[in-house]
């Protein structure tokens, strides 16, 4: 019997070791893997690459990741905290101890999908000529110029969701979906934290991430 459910958060994070790259889903608190991210703060893996839309939620959930200098690099579309005072991650960006790859959000999403879809690289009009595509190949198609962007994969992905079943199928509520499908596709081990995890299958047309892209499912309290 296929059963991708894991018993606890330790099992969910098994295999995350030094040097791992991890995608962290979420936008505005929806689809955010709060439990997994908090737990990541408590294990010992170092030299991590974190791939997420914004550093902020990760740092809020697991400040120790940055305080203990366990993150080597962030690949994000936003590295700014809300307050006026710089956070630990901002100070590390400033002093160069934390590497930053800043990616326009649409390119960020598309690059992860590409990794999952077997597309090693694609051309995009976004950010052409800007600081964020300096040094990248530019090429003309039908009279317009485009930048070459490469796929962005990772070893793990953490994804928050409303529902999952034992086959790893995932269904979202509201705007939880955001980067979830592309991160699940683009990672080797996609780990879902879901509020409702069932023996019963999710109806086939309600599935937003087919279980083929999902390796582990963790039930988390609905309160989180």
């Amino acid at each position, binding site marked *: 019997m296929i059963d991708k459910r894991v018993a606890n958060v330790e099992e969910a994070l098994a295999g995350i070791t030094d040097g791992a790259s991890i995608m962290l889903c979420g936008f*505005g608190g929806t689809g955010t893997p709060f439990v997994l991210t908090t737990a990541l703060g408590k294990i010992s893996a170092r030299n991590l690459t974190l791939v997420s839309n914004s550093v902020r939620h990760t740092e809020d959930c697991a400040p120790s990741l940055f305080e203990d200098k366990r993150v080597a690099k962030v690949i994000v579309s936003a590295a700014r905290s809300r307050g006026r005072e710089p956070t630990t991650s*901002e100070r590390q960006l400033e002093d160069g101890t934390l590497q930053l790859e*800043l990616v326009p959000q649409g390119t960020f999403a598309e690059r992860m999908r590409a990794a999952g879809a077997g597309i090693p690289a694609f051309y995009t009009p976004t950010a052409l000529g800007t*600081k964020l595509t300096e040094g990248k190949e530019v090429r003309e198609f039908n009279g317009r110029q485009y930048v070459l962007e490469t796929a962005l994969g990772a070893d793990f992905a953490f994804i928050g969701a409303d529902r999952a079943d034992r086959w790893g199928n995932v269904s979202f509520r509201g705007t939880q979906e955001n980067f979830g499908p592309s991160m699940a596709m683009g990672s080797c081990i996609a780990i879902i934290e879901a509020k409702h995890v069932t023996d019963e299958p999710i109806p086939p047309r309600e599935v937003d991430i087919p279980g083929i892209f999902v390796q582990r499912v963790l039930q988390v309290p609905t309160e989180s």
Partner: protein
Amino acid sequence: MSVTPLNRNQIAWRAAQDLKEGQYVNLGLGMPVLCANYAPADQEIMFHSENGIVGVGPVATSEQEDSDFVDAGSQFITLNSGASLSDSTHAFAMIRGGHIDVTLLGGFEVNPEGDLANWDAMVPNKGPLVGGAMDLASGAKSVRVVMAHSNRDGTPRLVEKCRYPETGFGCVNRVYTGLAVVDITPDGFVAVEVLDGLSREELQAQTGAPLFFADDCGVLTTPDL
């Protein structure tokens, strides 16, 4: 200056008046999202949010609040009739693929070629944030900027050359400020509306590059908001 510039709500109101029935419109963070409050009530406009919404409705009241429903500004929102939800990758396919009719973006600077700088004010010790700004600047059919006409220190935001890192090049079609509505044309900045009571000379003095005036240049007036 002889007159008081429009406030943020009034600038947003003016920008909203150019939105039309059936358009798909993405509103950037800050002043742009205020435009939704002032869109013509008799026209059905579909507001797009890059986190996966087509058909964003009003901000949720405390009773309506559902923490699974947020917009690109992380506000709790409602959905309008006809709304759909997708993932971010699909939402950006809409943007990049040219399916968004209008985006209203905030701006630090716009130059006469329509280059826009709006993502990095180079604040020391604060990390950078680009979000979806570059995707919107290059992907939307019409890119319109809402911003103050000048900085607090009086330096202009309509400039000859951007000092801040650019978001996109040759992308801006129109700028709404507290003093004017300015189109970007092959000739450069062309004012199409000037704030009631403001002279053309005064407007030019607040503008960092040559300003032309449309033949039918009108008067910019808004309700008190």
